[in-house]
């Protein structure tokens, strides 16, 4: 089978029925997608398949053949973060980070399909993504800011300088 991951064509040996998550992590060594619950319940393995968010633990690898798969590794290198990634940094939207790559990709897809900064719409779009640090409000703030097209000065994110209130938060 041939899979295209982050623009690179990769040949894999595994079964067409193997979870795409296992192929990405174990066979290709792409570890951005996390194996949280491995049964569709947490969202930490979400990747984009042709731009659409999918739980890679549920997608048989054979169904991804011929598609464009994007993992967090394809979003932007540390020195050139994508706007959504910058928003997550600015809003402290990552704590332990385990859910973050899934959240980022679901957020990117939400924004790409024209999602607004409406918190309810964001919650609906990311329903099923679990953050066990319970940092939901900052995640939603970050996605809202990215959806608005806010720009971020990443030097202002030090502890003590940031509050969500000063960045147009809903208050």
């Amino acid at each position, binding site marked *: 089978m041939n899979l295209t991951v982050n623009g690179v064509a990769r040949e894999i040996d595994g079964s067409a*029925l193997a979870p795409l998550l296992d192929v990405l992590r174990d066979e290709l060594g792409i570890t951005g997608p996390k194996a949280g619950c491995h049964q569709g319940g947490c969202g930490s393995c979400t990747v984009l398949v042709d731009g659409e968010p999918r739980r890679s633990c549920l997608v*048989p690898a054979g*169904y991804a053949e011929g598609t464009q798969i994007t993992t967090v590794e394809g979003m932007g290198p540390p020195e050139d973060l994508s706007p959504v990634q910058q928003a997550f940094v600015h809003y402290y939207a990552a704590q332990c980070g385990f859910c973050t790559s899934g959240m980022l990709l679901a957020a990117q897809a939400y924004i790409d399909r024209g999602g607004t900064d409406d918190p309810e719409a964001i919650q609906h779009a990311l329903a099923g993504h679990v953050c066990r640090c319970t940092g939901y409000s900052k995640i939603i703030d970050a996605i809202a800011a990215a959806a608005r097209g806010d720009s971020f000065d990443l030097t202002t994110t030090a502890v003590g300088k940031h509050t969500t209130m000063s960045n147009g938060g809903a208050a």
Partner: protein
Amino acid sequence: MAVASMAVDAATEILMPSSEDEAIAAFGDGADVVVVGGGTIVVPDMTYRRLRPSKALMLGRAGLSGITKDGSRVTIGATTPVQELTEMAAPIGPCASNVADLEIRSQGTVGGNLCAGEGSEAPRGDLQGAFLAVGATARSAAGGDVTEEPLEDFLAKRGERLLLSVSFDEPAAGAFAGLDRPHTHDYTALAVSGARATDGTLRLAATGAGSWGARLLSAEAAAGDPAAAGEAALQDVSPRDDALASAWYRTKVLPVLVRRVLTELKESA
């Protein structure tokens, strides 16, 4: 070092047909065949080793996806993603919106959901009630023979046949009422769908009140009095205790949901 996924046995035979005819041939008489729609049920069952298929029929490339309309007759291909139903009129649209979350709804298929019986923790066929309520028919194959029959009759065969599509006439009115889910990952704990056909026939059906979706025939017979119909519905099903809700709770809530659906249908008359 590259490691092959542990989820699938190397000996598992994979069939990935590229047309409906090929799918019917690959299914054969269905013996030992595990049918994979989107994979949202089968793949985690394999990951957790609850399922070790010797033969897996993957339908994703068989051209069985899509919704077509001929007058008021709607036909939905078996591998149409559940998400594509969410904008439909009640009861199907709101019922589909109550399935999983956006990502899983977009991957899981109508056929896979309709054919899913009781899982290890709870009933799974969220859509069964809504499609029973609109009087859907199921087109299916086994042994090369293709048949269309009422969905109830198809479901009674518990997966002996390969579902190809479901069809129904758009109802004159429909309603859906279900319990909220604690997490989007949960299957439907209990929901009631109702529809009045253009010829006036009223159908009610429940999901979550037993291992499979069920018509509520006693409630239909008493439909003139929504409160009485709600109580009558308890004669039609045998709710069970499971991970999502107790039988006691379902017994208390079912009459309420039936009453709400019938009241909404009356108001739309």
